[in-house]
């Protein structure tokens, strides 16, 4: 598949997600379990992707990973501030610092 086609397919899927509930929910109600399931997806997908992004993997895996340890101050600031700008700044700064220290 061509990259442009992939981008457009992603756009169609994403727009459908955004538009369908606005159009449909004036008339139709989803069953309760569907809302329940949708309610759990963000937690699952964000945690899974975060795990892949920061957990040391592969043969060269080491606990001395700046990706892993930078998550601690970042999570602390995200939890206390709920601010995107503070969290991004903390994450990038602590990663840069740890990457420097851990070589």
């Amino acid at each position: 598949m061509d990259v442009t086609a992939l981008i457009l397919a992603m756009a169609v899927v994403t727009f459908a997600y955004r538009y369908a509930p606005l159009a449909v929910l004036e008339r139709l109600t989803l069953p309760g379990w569907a809302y329940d399931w949708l309610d759990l997806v963000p937690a699952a997908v964000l945690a899974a992707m975060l795990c892949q992004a920061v957990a040391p993997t592969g043969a060269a895996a080491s606990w001395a990973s700046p990706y892993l340890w930078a998550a601690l101050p970042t999570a602390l600031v995200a939890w206390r501030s709920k601010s995107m700008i503070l969290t991004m700044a903390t994450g990038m700064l602590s990663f840069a610092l740890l990457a420097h220290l851990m070589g």
Partner: protein
Amino acid sequence: MSTTAGKQRSPFWAGFVATLPVAAGCAPFGVAYGAVAAATLLPWQTSLMSVAVFAGTAQFIAASMLAQGSAWLPVLVTCALVNLRLVLLSAAISPHVRGAGFVRRALAAQMLTDESFAVSTAGYRAGQVGPAYLIGSGLSLFIIWQAATVVGRLAGGFVPQGFGLEYALPASLICLLFLLVRSKRQWAVAVVAVGLVLATQAWLPAAWAAPAATVVAATIGLGIRRWT
């Protein structure tokens, strides 16, 4: 009283202005996306994705997966799962778009992101009404997102090490986790998802591990009795 002194901003501008600080916080993420996309996407394709998809996490994941040589299907499936939360956000915001015509409804839809949802929900709680507030909020993010994309794409390959730009994705995921995950049940599902990713990483291709863990963990979550 006919005076316009102290007149409130229109809902559109109120949403636009209220979202500017949040949009500024997303800018590094947009730059990081543009820089990663530089490895596999042409400049216009990089911006096409920012305009047409307009969902940072999905865009960053897609660009990273393509850079690692992933096939298109895992990219599309991951995007579909990563963005599935938009269905819920859209359902939750739908009362405020009720009765709007197709164009305003479509605009409101395309401008719906985690950040515009968060700002708009707060605005509606404070007395704002109608889709214009959401559209203004989203447009604020949209403009900064496009600019950040172009900056990142232009700088791609020349991004200096030591600024921590590699951490834009993890940091934004962490922030979204704390913004969107509220109940103990959701946190339990998050822990299950992490466990599944770690348990399957030896034999499941990385591109499929997160989608699979998401579906399984959310389904397991249905069986967890609702804690309050």
